[in-house]
């Protein structure tokens, strides 16, 4: 059984963390002149989040599905929960086919070392929402 009840929960927690992500100074600096728009496609439960770095905006659900992107990142929702807490090694996850990255990869991979503050933001969002059951030790 998935850790998330439905897509709305994913948008409330991961979507909110992504909103923090697009205004995080390190990300803004790294992506300001580029065209990096990441579509995160999650399964179990299914959910779609679009993270537009140059536009500094996040779309969820149907709006995200309809919008164009330059990179598509696919993973299960449980693995997304692990990844955004820094508990999923991205390179290993790719090798084990837990994560699939498609599209222009160089900028997206270049952002990986910057993800530290996002992990903290995501965990804080979960804690604030009383979802300690989703926080991984």
């Amino acid at each position, binding site marked *: 059984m998935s850790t998330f009840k439905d897509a709305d929960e994913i948008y409330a927690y991961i979507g909110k963390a992504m909103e923090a992500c697009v205004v995080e100074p390190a990300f803004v600096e790294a992506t300001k002149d580029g065209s990096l728009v990441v579509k995160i496609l999650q399964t179990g439960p299914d959910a779609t989040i679009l993270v537009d770095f140059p536009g500094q905006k996040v779309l969820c659900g149907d709006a995200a599905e309809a919008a164009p992107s330059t990179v598509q990142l696919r993973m299960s929702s449980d693995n997304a929960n692990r990844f955004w807490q820094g508990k999923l090694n991205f390179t290993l996850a790719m090798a084990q086919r*837990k994560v699939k990255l498609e599209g222009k990869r160089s900028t997206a991979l270049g952002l990986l070392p910057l993800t530290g503050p996002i992990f903290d933001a995501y965990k804080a969002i979960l804690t604030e929402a009383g979802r300690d059951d989703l926080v991984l030790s």
Partner: protein
Amino acid sequence: MSDKMTEAEFEAAFAKATELSDYFREIGPEHDRKNTFAKSTITKFKKSGLGALNVPKEYGGMGADILQTSKIVSELSRGDSAITLAYNMHYIMVGITMGLMSDVQNKEWLGRVAAGDIMFGPFSEQRAGFSGLADMTAVPQPEGGWRLYGKKVWGTLCEAANIVTTNATITDADGNLPDTFEERVEKESFFIANFKVDSKGQGDGIRIEKTWDALGMHATGTQTIHFEGFYVPEDGFICEWRSGAFGVLEWASLMFASIYLGMQYRVLEEARAVLSKKTLGATFGAIAAAETKVSNVGHIVDGIGDMASRVELSRRVVYRTCQELIDGYDDNWPVELRFPYIGLAKTFTAENVMHMTKRAMSLVGGSSFKKGAIFERLYRDSAASMFQPLNADQSCTYIGEQLLAPEELND
């Protein structure tokens, strides 16, 4: 001043490489025969300034890109592939580290390289080579930093190096490796440190054991390195190894390809030199004639044409792959296939050089099989191309697995 190496700067560097290549060619046979690293090349290599070839200009280097470096490596290899394979280790590690180190680390370590220091990197575990997660441990020290324990095989260039880079798995304070596979991956780390050993190969917590005894590539000095409490300060930590290496391994793959491209140049050159002049006199075998000049024999003409075609194809594949990386075209490849696709240049060149060395011996005849003959040495040396990562089998496995994988992701 341009950040990049200009054409004029490249030509000057290439001229130095030709000079050094001639020296490698002169002394190569002796070191092949004696199975020794060519120590006399250290001073000449340093003096040439080519050690700073692919160090960015901002750190005091020449700023050569991967294509320019490839061309220089092939030119050196044309003189002697075994000696060049040793120095190739330096170019590989400079290429890999500069993409992973912090600016502070680059200033320090690449600054030293620009000033003449030589870098090497033993990574292979005896049980599984480069693929093997590091059994070598990095034990955290109370004063900070780590002490490394373990051994690495394939320590090419150790007899000339001043800087060592390697991978080891960070343990708990008692030296215990992580329990799970995932944790081992996370904790496997990339380090850089000073490397200083005496004339017997003994240093402080590190030593060279002379174990190199192989079919070919004798002059590489590819020894075993023992880490026996070797201290690496905190600022010697570069990054998590596998994640870091993932994006920069083209420096290994394409430099190996460049070695074997240079060897192909040499095979063709030597085969032409012999076969264009050789006469057999009166023969009564496959050819019955009062006077047989081999350059008029059909299969020899075809053979030289075939070899020349392979050289040209390899050159185009290696150069084009380098250029596509420079242009960022690799962004269009599926991310999982980036490394094996880059590796195709190496596997293609490896297949060609092994084919050519065998063919050259066949065309030249039995004299090529005798010890001391250049063709016999090239044949042995070319066999090493089967092993450097990725080899042809590994590349095909990588690619096939990805193409046959189901759409659904694992959880």
